[in-house]
């Protein structure tokens, strides 16, 4: 297991570890559609996790709304590719609710095709591993900061 892969919810850890190894992704976040991080790999600073999660959740929300206005089902995946780095953001349903995966990969060690291929496996593994019959807890504003701090402490082993 990569020492930099950590999970707030343990059932996400093995699927994420496998994905990081197989897809050669540099950074990965598994989060809920509200931006709550369930697991991360490759991040070294809490502030980076916070901003990446917030931005990813915002993209999911804005593309979902765009799809809704176009009367389409929500978009499955989004990919951006630069000269050296690409990122891939996709959502899928589990018993834990809608989850999103944000993967950042370097083009000299991976590719969109590889990331997409192993993302399918990751989504299937997370669906299979997600706790059944659990109603996702509402994140209340009053608890948000404490939950965020707890999550970041877990993700960075504090």
């Amino acid at each position, binding site marked *: 297991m990569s020492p930099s892969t950590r999970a707030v919810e343990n059932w996400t850890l093995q699927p994420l570890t496998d994905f990081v190894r197989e897809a050669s992704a540099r950074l990965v976040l598994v989060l809920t559609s509200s931006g709550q991080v369930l697991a991360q790999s490759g991040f070294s600073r809490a502030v980076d996790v916070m901003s990446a999660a917030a931005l990813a959740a915002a993209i999911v929300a804005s593309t979902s709304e765009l799809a809704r206005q176009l009367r389409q089902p929500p978009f499955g995946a989004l990919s951006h*590719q630069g000269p050296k780095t*690409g990122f891939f953001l996709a959502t899928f349903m589990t018993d834990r609710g809608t989850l999103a995966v944000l993967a950042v990969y370097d*083009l*000299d060690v*991976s*590719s*969109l*095709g*590889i990331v*997409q*291929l192993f993302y399918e496996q990751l989504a299937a593994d997370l669906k299979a591993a997600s706790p059944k019959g659990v109603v996702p807890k509402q994140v209340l504003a009053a608890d948000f900061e404490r939950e965020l701090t707890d999550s970041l402490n877990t993700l960075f082993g504090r």
Partner: protein
Amino acid sequence: MSKALDLITRVRGVRGAMLVSAEDGLVVAEQLMEGIKGSAVAALAASLAGRLRRAMEAAGTGTSVFWHLQAEQGALLVVPSGEASGNLLVVAVAEPDVNIGLVRLELLRAAEAGA
């Protein structure tokens, strides 16, 4: 494009032919027999092609014009096509005992025709 793939798949023992974007490993066009997962083959071919290109550049041998990966239950045959041989890959998935020379010829023809 589909005609080029058609000519490749007509060779006895070829189970499928594909055009793959070399940069991102996505399928551009495919003619595959049932049971072959095109996205996996495309991702594998592009990943290998990228690593091979860098290794060959480092070794000073220039770019590859054809490569053949033999596995227990099949073979992958690839010819890079397009600008500086870096844009597209013409890929054949074949039985282990396929006539390699014939497939190579059809792959090269497809690549020359710009697939």
